[in-house]
């Protein structure tokens, strides 16, 4: 048993390095996409202290809107723009209808409000688009198809072009959002709001405006996530479960840290794929789903605030 746990997996890695590289690549692609989803959560949490339970359904809603518009004959590029418009309207509506009336309410109330929002969006999505799965318009969006086969390390490593595109686009998106919120005036305002709503208000920062911006940014992230995951599978309501993959990432990286979301995403992505591939067979497989939480909890024992999360110091 000890041999199977501590020796054999490493022997397998050495014996078939091509499969190790393939597993690492799969983990990297998943990790970048997890990081992107986690970023959507982090942005909203930083600005309003709300854990946005609706992030998953926002992914589905954005992807369905895009594909649904295209089915109605709207050209792909215009469908993307219109979808962004829909996500902006959603952001404004959330700010007006959900957040504004609940200002100064306990965080749990806002959290529950996002639960409500989830079911409203599920219902709305099903009424408008129906429950049938749809195919992502990958070709129309000029996303590449096919595979790059590398004959290396005594075997072959298959790199899907769509996965490469997903990794690149998600990385660019993460960098752009990180820079935007780090170096622009709006970004500084966001950080001020994250530190203290009252202090931010006292220096003239509009909370409402910031909330709209971050919810729109989360909508943008949802659209990109929906396109990428939709291209890997299909666009259906099952996609919302993908957003749950962000939970261990957030536990690991911290709810308030953009770098935490990125590093956390990569650790979880790589960790779960390697664990499933090399250690999964020992327990009959299917460990990927929960091993991410084990990894996150392991980190949490050392750093309770997450890898990059703010240390909470409270005066007693």
């Amino acid at each position, binding site marked *: 048993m000890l041999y199977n746990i501590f020796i054999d997996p490493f022997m397998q890695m050495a014996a*078939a390095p091509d*499969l190790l590289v*393939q*597993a690492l690549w*799969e983990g990297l*692609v*998943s990790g970048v996409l997890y990081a992107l989803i986690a970023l959507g959560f982090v942005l909203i949490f930083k600005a309003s202290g709300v854990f946005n339970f609706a992030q998953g359904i926002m992914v589905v809603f954005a992807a369905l809107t895009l594909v649904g518009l295209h089915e109605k004959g709207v050209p792909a590029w215009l469908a993307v723009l219109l979808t962004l418009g829909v996500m902006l309207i959603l952001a404004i509506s959330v700010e007006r209808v959900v957040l504004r009336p609940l200002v100064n309410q306990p965080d749990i109330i806002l959290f529950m409000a996002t639960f409500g929002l989830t079911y409203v969006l*599920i219902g709305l999505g*099903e009424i408008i688009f*129906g*429950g*049938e*799965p749809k*195919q992502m318009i990958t070709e129309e969006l000029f996303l590449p*198809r096919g*595979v790059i086969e590398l004959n290396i390390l005594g075997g072959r490593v*298959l790199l*899907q072009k769509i996965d490469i595109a997903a990794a690149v686009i998600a990385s660019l998106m993460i960098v752009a959002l990180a820079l935007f919120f780090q170096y622009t005036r709006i970004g500084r305002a966001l950080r001020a709001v994250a530190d203290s709503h009252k202090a931010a208000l006292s220096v003239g920062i509009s909370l409402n405006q910031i909330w709209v911006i971050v919810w729109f940014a989360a909508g943008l992230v949802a659209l990109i996530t929906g396109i990428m*995951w939709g291209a*890997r*599978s*299909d666009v*259906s*309501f*099952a*996609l*919302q*479960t*993908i957003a*749950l*993959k962000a939970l261990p990432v957030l536990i690991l990286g911290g709810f308030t840290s953009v770098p935490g979301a990125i590093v956390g995403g990569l650790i979880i992505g790589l960790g*779960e*794929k390697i664990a*499933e*591939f090399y250690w*999964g*067979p020992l327990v*009959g*497989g*299917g460990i*990927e*789903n929960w091993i991410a939480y084990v990894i996150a909890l392991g980190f949490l024992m050392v750093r309770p605030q997450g890898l990059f999360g703010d240390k909470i110091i409270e005066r007693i």
Partner: protein
Amino acid sequence: MTRKLVLSALAATAMIASAVPASAEDTVFLPLLTYRTGPFSGSGVHIANGMHDYLRMLNERDGGIGGAKIIIEECETGYDTKKGVECYESTKTKGAVMYNPYSTGITLQIIPKAAVDKIPILSMAYGLSASADGSRFPWVFNPPVTYWDGASVFIKHVLSEEKGNLKGKTIGLVHLDAPFGKEPIPVLEAMAKEYGFNLKLYPIAAAQMQNQGSTWLAIRRDRVDWIYNQGWGAMNPTAVKEAIKNGFPINKLVGVWWAGADDDARAGGDQGKGYKSLNFHNTGANFPVIQDIKKYVLDKGFSKAEASHLGENLYNRGVYNAMLMAEAVRTAQKITGKKAVTGEDVRRGLEALDITEARFKEMGMEGFAAPVKVSCTDHNGHNKVFISQWDGTKYVKASDWIEPLKSIVRPLIEEAAKDYEAKNTGWPKRTEACDKAA
């Protein structure tokens, strides 16, 4: 004047009183537990449409079944077991005569209730395989085939493709990590011993349905020769895409009948051509029954289906399921001589179900499916299945009708039924008599 009024009131009451039983007598309540929402709605919508449309067509064309109008009521389960049980509880008091839970999880929950409530369960080609043993499960029916029959047909297909020798071959089962997904494991394990192949299991959690990268990498590592996919919902198109992505020969990936939606294969694009799925009914909209649905239901705006989906695999699956329901009611009417049959009557109808080729022809379904026969002890029939293959635009029949390996499956079913009975203390002994026809 007062007398006149009283007489009029009495006459009106008598009319109403006589009208109510008449209308109640002429109806049969068939609740449909469907899921048009949730993560599995992609498959559920088409089945729900097929079931609803067939029953509605019977109402519109024939005035119901044997003169009894069908009351159709859909209850949304979202493929969620808790909601499914709520649907069961909320509809049973309305006079339900049969249940189609449309989920193995829901089926397992309501099996113990069936004998108590005296309402039979028709879990068509899903649910608990062991419930095919009518001597221990008099209230549960799962024709035309069990998952175990399906797995045995898959192995028969592989045997024929591999020239009868499976020694040294590796066969993988990619399955949803849920009761439904695990169903074929016992029979595949038994067959692995019998035929000498190596069986590998690849469970996929519901949350990982669209994230199967490491599973398919493991399949590549294990050099699996054939894959049987016991998947559902978004798991299936993802499996097809991952197989293509990892260079797994698509014609060696065979799905159970629930992994045979048109959308599942379509997800693979051009490379999805060759994907196989088991099936127990044909596809296509040229059958007179489908044309009648179009004429009496779709064209009149009574359907939620789009015309393009008529004849697709899962739509026809729903039609087939509803046909079994209707035939069970019809048989019950024949046995009892009543129009408004009860759950107990329908149980007898299901037990005497015998749909011959001639009957299929009468129903406008000639060539739609193989004959189905259920009996008092055999609540499944272990009927024939065929391999259907995606030709790039639609499924086509790619094999003859294949008989399940009954010699292996039936003893396993009886053993599992016995085991279920032993584990469920107080499981009632069958007291229901067998009809002559059954």
